C-alpha cells in the first residue's frame, strides 16, 4: 500500500467554514454538550496531529473518537489495547504465501485514516512504542520493508487515569507525540437527560452519515497549512513555551515540538473560525490543551503567590495569563 499523496488544493474560506460547521454539527449531535472537546478533536485532525483523550470510563471517550471517524468517509480501525497485545498486532506481519513462495505483508489495524487506540495504557511499553513510532513517522517497517501509512492519519488514543492497576502510564516522551490531550468530563444535567431520551432508540452513531470524504479532508488540511502566522504570534507562542521551561513549578518545560504543534493547532482553529490568519487568541485557547500533557509538576509545586499548584493545567493557564501579547503597529 503506497502512501497516498498529501498534496491537495486548498479550498476557499467559505467552503471550509461550511464543511467545518457541518462536521461540528454532526459530532455535537452525538456528543451532547461537549462542543469544546469536539472543536479540539477537529482541530487536531485538521492540524495533522494525534489526540489523547484522558478521562474516567463512560463519559464518551470512545464515542468521540468514533463520531469523528464516522464523519469522515475514510477507513477506521479500532485497537483495544490489552497487556498481551504485541507490536505485530498493530503494525501487521509478513505471512509466507506457500502458493507464491514469497512473504506477503498483511497490514495491521494501523493502516487506516483514523485509528482508535482504546485504553492505550493497558498495553505493554513495547506495544505502545510501536504505535507511537508509527504516529511520529507515518511509516511502518516490517522485516526490512517500509510501508507508508494512510494520509490523513489520525490516532485517537484514550486512556483511563483512574484504574492504574496493571497499566503502563505513557512516559512524557511518548505523551509528547500527541498534539493535544483533552478530557471530556461529565455532561450537565440537561445534556444527560437528553442523552437518555435519544439513546432509547439505538446509538446516535448509527444515524451519523459521513460528511466529508478523504479528498475533501485533504483539501481542508491543505487549507490549514496555508493559514498565515504573523511573527508577532510566533513570538507569542515561543514566549509561552519558553516560559514553561523557566517555570520553577514544572519539572520539565515543553519541547520545541510542542511549539510547532501549538502553532499548527492554532492554524486549524483560526481556519475553523473563518480566518486566514492566526490570532493570539488561538494560541491562548489551545495552550493548555496542547502543552499540559507534556509536562510534570515538581513535587510540592507552588505558584509564585505561595498557593500549591494542583495541576499542570493551572500552571500553564497562569503562564498564558502572564505572557505579554505583542501587538505590533507594523503589519506582519
Amino acid at each position: 500500500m503506497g502512501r497516498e499523496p498529501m498534496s491537495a488544493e486548498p479550498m476557499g474560506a467559505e467552503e471550509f467554514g461550511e464543511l467545518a460547521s457541518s462536521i461540528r454539527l454532526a459530532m455535537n449531535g452525538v456528543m451532547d454538550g461537549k462542543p469544546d472537546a469536539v472543536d479540539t478533536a477537529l482541530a487536531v485532525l485538521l492540524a495533522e496531529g494525534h489526540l489523547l483523550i484522558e478521562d474516567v470510563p463512560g463519559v464518551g471517550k470512545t464515542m468521540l473518537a468514533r463520531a469523528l471517524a464516522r464523519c469522515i468517509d475514510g477507513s477506521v480501525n479500532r485497537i483495544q489495547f490489552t497487556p498481551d497485545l504485541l507490536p505485530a498486532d498493530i503494525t501487521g506481519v509478513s505471512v509466507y504465501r506457500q502458493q507464491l513462495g514469497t512473504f506477503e505483508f498483511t497490514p495491521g489495524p494501523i493502516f487506516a485514516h483514523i485509528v482508535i487506540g482504546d485504553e492505550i495504557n493497558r498495553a505493554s511499553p513495547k506495544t505502545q512504542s510501536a504505535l507511537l513510532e508509527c504516529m511520529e513517522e507515518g511509516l511502518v517497517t516490517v522485516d526490512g520493508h517500509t510501508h507508508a501509512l494512510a494520509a490523513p492519519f489520525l490516532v485517537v488514543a484514550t486512556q483511563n487515569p483512574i484504574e492504574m492497576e496493571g497499566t503502563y502510564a505513557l512516559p512524557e516522551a511518548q505523551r509528547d507525540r500527541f498534539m493535544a490531550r483533552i478530557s471530556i468530563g461529565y455532561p450537565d444535567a440537561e445534556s444527560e437527560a437528553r442523552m437518555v431520551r435519544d439513546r432509547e432508540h439505538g446509538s446516535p452513531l448509527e444515524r451519523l452519515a459521513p460528511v466529508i470524504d478523504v479528498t475533501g479532508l485533504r483539501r481542508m488540511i491543505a487549507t490549514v497549512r496555508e493559514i498565515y502566522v504573523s511573527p508577532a504570534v510566533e513570538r507569542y507562542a515561543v514566549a509561552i513555551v519558553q516560559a514553561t521551561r523557566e517555570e520553577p513549578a514544572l519539572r520539565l518545560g515543553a519541547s520545541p515540538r510542542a511549539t510547532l504543534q501549538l502553532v499548527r493547532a492554532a492554524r486549524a482553529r483560526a481556519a475553523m473560525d473563518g480566518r486566514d490568519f492566526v490570532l493570539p487568541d488561538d494560541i491562548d485557547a489551545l495552550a493548555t490543551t496542547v502543552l499540559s500533557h507534556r509536562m510534570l509538576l515538581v513535587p510540592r509545586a507552588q505558584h509564585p503567590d505561595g498557593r500549591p499548584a494542583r495541576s499542570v493545567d493551572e500552571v500553564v493557564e497562569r503562564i498564558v495569563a502572564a505572557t505579554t501579547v505583542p501587538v505590533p503597529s507594523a503589519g506582519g
Partner: protein
Amino acid sequence: MRETHRVRTSADPRSRTGAGFALSAAVLLAVGAALTSFSVVLDEGGWLLSALVTVAAVIAAGALVRYRVRVWRPLWSVLGAATAGVVSLQLQFAADTTLLGIVPLVGTLERAQELIRAGEVSIAEQAIPADADAGLRFLIAAGAGVVALLCDAVATLSRRPALVALPLLGILAIPVVLAPGALPVLSLLATAAAFLLVLALHRPAVNGGSAGVRRALLVGASVLVAAVVVPPALPPVVAGAVVPGGGIAGLSTGINPVLELGDDLRRPTAVTVLRYSTDQSAGLYLTLAHLDEFDGQTVQPVAAGEPRALGEIGPPAWLGAAVERTEVSTRIQLESVRTRWVPLPSAPVSLAGLAGEWLVAPDGVTVQSSEGVLREGAYTVQSLDARPTVAQLEAAGADQAGLESYRAVPDVDPAIAATAREVVDAAGATSPYSQALALQRSFTGGDFVYSEDAPVEGGYDGSGADIVATFLEVRAGYCVHFASAMTLMARTLDIPARIAVGFQPGDENPSVPGEFVVSSNDLHAWPELHFDGIGWVRFEPTPSRGETPGYADPTAAVAGDEAGEPDDAPTEPEEPASGEEETDAAEGTDDDPTGIPDLIDGGNDGQETGATGARFALDARALALAALALLALALVTPGVWRVVRRARRRRSRNPVERWREVRDTARDLGLPAEPTRTPRALAARWAAVAGLDADLAAVLDAVEERAFAGRRSVPEAEPPEVGAVLRGLRDAVPWWRRAVAVVAPLSLLDRASLEQTEPRPTPVVTRL
C-alpha cells in the same frame, strides 16, 4: 534548570575576566571622579587620598574575589569587598588598635565610635569649606567605601548597570546641596564620562546589543544634562538647613572671617554663636580680626605675631594716653561656633581661660589660634572702653608714622577717590575727623540701601577693592561693602583705616539681666580709622546696622538733645548708647512682626526689623509660589503629555496606534488593559463593561487585520474611528475615575509604551 545554570557558569571565557576587571576599573574611575566633587566643600587635605584608598580596596577585592571564586559568587564578592573596605579603614585610622592591622579589637570599635562622633560634630559645626579633620576624613572614607561597594555590586552583579548612577548621584548631591553656588562641573563631567564607560563595558549582549548601549548613552546624556541644568536653576533653599547627623549647622569662621560673612548673614535661621556678660551697662562690639590688605576680591587679615601663651596681651600700643577710658570685664561663653579667631572686645588688656599657644596681632589687639579651631568654652577678658571726646577728635590729625600699611590704596577705580573727595568737599570738611564723619553720613544718609542679596545678584559679593566701585554705583550692599568702601575712601583721603570683622552687641537676654546673646545675624564688619594721639576709632557706615558710637554719631545728638546742629556731637558717650538701647527695646517689641526678638538682630532699629521681616516674608512667598508652580507643573505635565499622545494616535492612520489609544484610555480609567491579554479578550471585557459592541468590533477587526493578518497590500483605507469607543469607556466609569485618568494617566508608566517609537518623557531630576 540547575543543569543549564552550571553550564552557564563553567563556560566562562577568559575574555570575560578581562572585561570584568575593565568594568571594575571603570567603576573605580566613576566613584573617584564623584569623590573629587567634595573639593568644593572641604579644605585641601588627605581626605581624598584616604577615600580613594578605601574605594580602590573595595573594588579591587570585589574583582579579585569574582575572578577566583566560582560558587556563590555574588555573596563572596560583596563579603570580600566589604572586608577589604573595613581593613583599609582600620589600617588608615586605627592601625594601632588592631591585631596585625587586620583583626579588629575592642579598641578599634571605640576608635570608630570616637571618629564618627567627631565627624558628626564637624559636620554640625563647620562651615564650608570645612576642615577635613580625622572624623570627617573617616566618615568620607567610610561613606565612599559603602558607595564603592554598592556601585561595584550593581555594576558587576546586576543586569542594570545604569543603577550605578544612584550611589554616584548620592555622592554628587552632597556638595551640590551644601554649596549650591559652587557646582563642581569638572567632577560632574568626569563622573558622567566614567558612568558612560561603565555602561559601555557592562556586557552589552545582556542589554540587547548596541541598542542597549545606545539607550544607555541616551539616558546617561539626558541625566547629565538635567544634572547640570537643574541644580543651578533651583532656588538655594538649603542654606542653614539641617545637616545629616548634626542639627542646625553652627557658625564657622575660617582663616579669613570676612569670606563667609555674607553667607552667614543670609542664613534663614540664625544660630546663637555666643553669650557674654559684662559689667558695662550696654553691649559690646566683639572683634574677631582686623583686615588691612586689599587684594582684588578680598581683604586679608593683619599679620599676626609669634605663637605665645595668653595672659597679658594689652593694653594696645595705639591707645592715646589722653583718652578717657574705663576698665571693662567681660565673660564670653562660646556656643555654636568654630573659629580660629577669638572674639574679643576692643582694646583688650588681659585674657584668662584659654590655654595653649596663640598668635596675637599687637596692632589689634586680636588673637588667633596657632592651629586648630576654638569651639567651645568660656573665657574672661579685661578690656578698655575708650571714650574720646568730639573735641579731641576734631583736633586730632592723621599723620602718625608707622601706619603705612593702613594707608596703602590698592590699584583701583579712580572713581573711588573722586567720590571720596566729592563727599568731603560737599560737606566742607577739613579735619580728618570731620572728613570721616562726612563719609559716614554719605552712607547712612539714605542714598545707600542695606541689602544682603543685592551684591549676590549684582555679582559683586565680596570684600576686596574691586567690588567697591560697583558698590558705590549700585548703592546697595551689606556691612562688608560699607566697611570696605569707607575704609578705601578714607585711605584715599590719607587717613589710616582698616576693616574690623566681628559681632555687633547682640540682644540682652530678657531672662538673665546683663547677659547678651549674639547670633550669626550679628556678624558684622565695620571700618576703624586711626587718629593721632587717640588711636583706632570705630565708625558705623552701614545703615540700620550696629550702633553708631557716640563720638561718631552726630544725629544721635538730635535724638537725644533735640538740638539742630548736626555736628554738635555729644560729649558724653554713655548717653546716646543707653538712649538707643531704650528706643531699640521699645521699637523692637512694637514693630517686631514675629514677636521673637531673639531671631532679630540686636542693636538694629525698627526699620531694620521691618525690612528683615519683609525680606523673609518675600522669600517665603516666592518660595511658596515657586513650589506651587512646580507642583502645578508636576500635576499638569502627565495630563498634557497624555493629551498630546492621544491626539497623535487618533490622527494616525495605523489602526494599531488607535487601538493603543483605546487600550491606554482603558488603563487610565482603571478598566482591564493588561498587556498580557489579547486584543480580542480585552475587547470582550470592555464590551461587558461599556456595551459598544459594534464600534469595538470594527476597531478590533482593524487592529487584528493589521497586527496579525500579515497583509502588506491592504489598501490604506481610513481605519475606524475610536472616538465613540473612548467616549463609551469614559462613560462606563464613575466621575472620579475619569478625573484620575486626566491627572494621573497610568498608561504613561506602562512598559508597553516602550513598544512605540516615540521617546519616553525625560525623567524629572530633582535635587536630592
